[in-house]
């Protein structure tokens, strides 16, 4: 790679080339800047656009005299296709969404945090790499496949071991959803634990604390914001999930009394009924209103998660 001839004319050529590149760089930089700017703002445009579209479809129902928002939110009676008396109460579905999500979190949070602690603090390097790959793989399983597992494997197991009359119920949905949330919770919690500097670990270890005391007394307090964010992102996932819960929960509009009751979630309701509701009908508009409700719910959860994550960064 020697260039013997380039030695003599090098200084002037270099100067000229440098000048030209600078001009290019200036233009290129401007273009790049504009592109990046556009990308950044497109996200806002999309979010606003989606919200406006959903809201626009839902809005006429709010102006309708036969429709009451209070009834929509607090009545469990959902009879959108009744001939004589249509009733649009989604309270049972709110209860369904909340109960399935809470159940999923009760299962997923201890499990996810435990796994994250094991991966980040206790296992060896090899095991860690393997576990991380497996968990990423779990996160990549499509939700319809999870729903399928709920419908077949899980429902059979539930009937077999609990004696419940039907296997597709709140418990099934909760377990399936928990399995879907665990990878998110594990990977974000693990990041939060890894972000705790090693100097903290060594300082605490030098004080004679055991590994468990280290985790319990130092690492968890140090990483608590990140761990909370992980849990809330898991909740967001739970509230927004559709396909798997549609298949696993049994889809009955009913305020659950026990974990063996079938429930219907807001998301599953939209997915299953939107195809049959004639465009522009009241039913159709109410389904969009449910969309607005969901949007608000997930937005609230994400906002809380985000505020907390921001809190971590400020530290």
């Amino acid at each position: 790679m020697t260039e013997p001839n380039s030695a003599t004319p090098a200084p002037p050529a270099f100067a000229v080339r440098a000048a030209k590149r600078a001009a290019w760089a200036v233009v290129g930089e401007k273009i790049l800047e504009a592109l990046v700017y556009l990308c950044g703002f497109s996200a806002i445009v999309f979010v606003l656009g989606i919200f406006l579209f959903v809201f626009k479809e839902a809005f006429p129902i709010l102006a309708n005299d036969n429709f009451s928002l209070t009834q929509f939110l607090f009545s469990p009676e959902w009879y959108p296709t009744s001939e004589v008396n249509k009733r649009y109460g989604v309270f049972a579905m709110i209860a369904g969404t909340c109960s399935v999500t809470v159940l999923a979190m009760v299962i997923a949070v201890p499990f996810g945090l435990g796994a994250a602690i094991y991966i980040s603090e206790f296992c060896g390097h090899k095991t860690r790499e393997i576990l991380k790959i497996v968990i990423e793989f779990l996160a990549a399983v499509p939700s319809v496949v999870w729903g399928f597992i709920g419908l077949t494997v899980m429902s059979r197991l539930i009937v077999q071991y609990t004696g419940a009359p039907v296997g597709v119920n709140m418990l099934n949905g909760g377990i399936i959803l928990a399995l879907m949330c665990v990878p998110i919770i594990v990977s974000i919690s693990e990041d939060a634990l890894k972000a705790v500097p090693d100097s903290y670990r060594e300082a605490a270890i030098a004080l004679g604390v055991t590994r468990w005391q280290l985790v319990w007394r130092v690492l968890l307090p140090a990483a608590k914001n990140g761990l909370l964010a992980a849990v809330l992102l898991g909740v967001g996932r739970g509230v927004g999930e559709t396909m798997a819960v549609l298949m696993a929960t049994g889809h009955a509009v009913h305020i659950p009394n026990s974990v063996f009751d079938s429930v219907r979630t807001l998301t599953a309701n939209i997915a299953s009924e939107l195809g049959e509701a004639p465009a522009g009908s009241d039913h159709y508009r109410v389904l969009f209103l449910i969309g607005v409700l969901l949007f608000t719910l997930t937005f609230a959860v994400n906002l809380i998660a985000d505020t907390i994550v921001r809190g971590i960064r400020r530290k």
Partner: protein
Amino acid sequence: MVNVPAIEKHIEVTGLRLSYGMKEVLHGISFDIRRHEILGVIGPAQSGKTSLLRCINRTIEFTPGTHVSGTITVDGEDVRKVRDVYALRRKIGMVAPLPVGLPLSIRENVALAPRSAGLTRKGDLDAIVEQCLRQAALWDEVKDRLDSLGTKLSGGQQQRLTIARALSHQPEILCLDEFSIAIDPVTTMRIEEVLKELRHHMTIILVTNLTQQARRLADRTMFLWKGEIVELDTTDVIFSAKPTDPRTRDYVEGVFG
């Protein structure tokens, strides 16, 4: 010289070799530390001073790829064969060169070790917290905000917090690794006075880049260079005009290259 039973060996190091991966940083050093003496350890950067301390309390094990051979005994017990490594670590107070305030309240920073050792009575813990913070010359500055975060203190205050923490489990051995790099001279002097007091109760290993600090405090001083002991003798000899090894004099006088 003040201590009558000073001949008793508290720590014995024999043929200690340490390597990080392929790189050996301590090349088989042997020496002992007497009970209730202050042993000064001086030496240029990278000579292995910090690594030596980490071998004694076995925190070196948390760095992957290290290999230790030779023996270190504390009170006649091989540190690598002790049954309860946590008890061993509680016996040794460690002050790291970079101040590490744990992300807990100031009170909890100091109470962590005694609490982990099983002490639960609030009165006892509070007494320890106060005593240790006083010894580290920090009490007056923080006594009104013991429940605020330790990480929010200034660098020098955090350094003193780590000293208080190292004293909190009433160690028999105190390892100080360049404890004064972030502390102003006046406060350093106050802590040095405390150390002179503490040496009646504990053995102190004082790693320092300030050779004059070793001269002021240490009974004996060890000059460590590139993982080997150049000279270990009473401080008077090390800082005299004629130490045994000419390199010692060069280093002490600052002409070492």
